């Protein structure tokens, strides 16, 4: 059978891509790009504010916003028209980040077994170990997207010299709370699992707390997360405290 040409349509971003019958992606870049991430966050915030009947859920990934909708209430063609209108409203790549985000400060140890590949990563970034820790903790990093496990945030972007390739061989498992890095990003592992990223530190932070009725998943896309270097002993002491010593405040 011959397939319609429309199946092969893929205009340059910003682009609407239907994801099945009841989903729509609004993509701002085909490569990881900070402006595209900000655009996705701002665009999603705008869609949430629209509150159209038939909207079921919105989300963002690194460079796209996503809309889940009920096609019986909100026909895909109508949704596309509305999304195009909003896309044309402004230059989304220049949009401000939405309000209602949270700044987190999370204690992390960069000592001994907590940081098995810190020296390796620092060398690849062209830094001393001390300078590497200083840079990792220097400023808040944005939760560019969450995935792999509930609450697992991809934090970025770090400076260019942190554009480290993933390891060829996976680390078979890192523990929950591990701080790993690659491709100008940091992750605080929300579960234990294998990774191709290098472990440079350790937190006791639990990003997924299903029993916490108020905030069962700590981070949301767009939140800012800053690590605070503490000693290994201090990390264990803080582990007993609420949120393992992490603090959070609203970003205004």
């Amino acid at each position: 059978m011959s397939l319609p040409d429309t199946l092969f349509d893929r205009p340059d971003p910003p682009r609407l891509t239907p994801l099945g019958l009841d989903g729509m992606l609004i993509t701002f870049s085909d490569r990881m790009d900070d402006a595209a991430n900000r655009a996705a966050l701002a665009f999603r915030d705008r869609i949430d504010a629209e509150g159209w009947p038939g909207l079921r859920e919105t989300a963002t990934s690194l460079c796209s916003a996503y809309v889940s909708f009920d096609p019986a209430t909100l026909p895909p063609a109508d949704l596309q028209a509305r999304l195009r209108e909003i896309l044309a409203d402004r230059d989304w790549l220049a949009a401000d980040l939405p309000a209602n985000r949270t700044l987190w400060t999370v204690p992390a140890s960069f000592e001994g077994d907590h940081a098995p590949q810190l020296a390796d990563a620092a060398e690849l970034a062209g830094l001393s170990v001390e300078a590497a820790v200083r840079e990792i903790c220097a400023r808040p990093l944005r939760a560019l997207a969450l995935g792999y496990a509930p609450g697992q945030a991809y934090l970025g972007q770090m400076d260019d010299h942190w554009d480290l390739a993933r390891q060829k061989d996976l680390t078979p498992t890192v523990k929950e709370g591990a701080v790993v890095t690659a491709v100008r990003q940091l992750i605080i592992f929300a579960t234990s699992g294998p990774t191709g990223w290098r472990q440079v530190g350790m937190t006791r932070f639990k990003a997924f707390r299903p029993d916490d009725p108020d905030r069962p998943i700590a981070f949301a896309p767009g939140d800012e997360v800053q690590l605070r270097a503490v000693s290994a002993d201090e990390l264990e002491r803080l582990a007993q405290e609420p949120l393992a010593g992490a603090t959070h405040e609203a970003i205004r």
Partner: protein
Amino acid sequence: MSTLTVQKIGPGASVQDLGRRGWLSQGLSRGGAADRLALLEGAALLEQSPDLAALELSAMGGSFTVDAPTRIALTGAPMRASLDGEPLRWSASHLVKPGQTLALGPATSGVWSYLSVGGGIDTAPILGSRAAHLALGLGPKLETGTELPMGKDKGGPVEQILEVSDRFKGGDIRILPSTHTALFAREDLERFTETTFTRDQRGNRQGVRLNHDGAPFATRDQLGLVSEVIVPGDIQMTGEGTPYILLPECQTTGGYPRIGSVLPVDLPKAAQAAPGAKLRFAFVDRDAALAAHQSEDAQLTALKKAVRPLVRDPAKMRDLLSYQLISGVTAGRPETGDTQ
């Protein structure tokens, strides 16, 4: 509060409802029943809300007792089913009384079977849903002796049946484009729609693997794809070019190429294809997909209308005189000497 007690249970069973929405952007997939239609069928048979939780059983099934008279519905992949040894009809509602043993399994076709109870399984909701998320360890572990609380049943009929179309043996699945469909070469996309796939042994609530003869399916530049949102029904290629149909516990984002997305109304059939079943995929245009679409509300309304009382053929009843033909609650149950 009444209790459903697990006497025996096979691997892969869990408490499920229609899942949780609103957590996708924070990395938690919707979850919920692998065959959502089966939950709606259970709700229709018991005349209750589709939001109530049921037991999802995989091929081996299990056996169960209750501590109070309990209405049940059996839906999804048909299993051998019996109550104290008397065969029970599938896709039907029945009454189970204390002292009786409900034995379900193995499945005769399909993968996911459902035991719904009047009032629903009333375990504590987690993040707004009772659905177990096996990959995350959410929800009660089911084993011999597990006691599951049941909600209060508002009451209703039993011995009701639903005629359902056979969605338990694979077949033709309609798809729409997904994130990366346009990145596949035309000849690969055509080959995909001309290939008969076989459901592999490997499969779980995250997804099921499909095997095929011939070259793998890959896109250009597929190692450089930026992660995008994933939803159940997406057909994702592994790095080796083997397709997986993604199910309710799939990842929420990913950068492996997705060639298409199964129509929501065809997803139960795709999920219920057992190992060895054949599946073929056809792209349909959006208008055809919309015409075929039924919201879950509309599906439930239609199912409620389709429910019929079970009419027994007197010629097939082994001992007509032992049936109590008048009583409401025990209609159709033989009153044998050992029944309480």
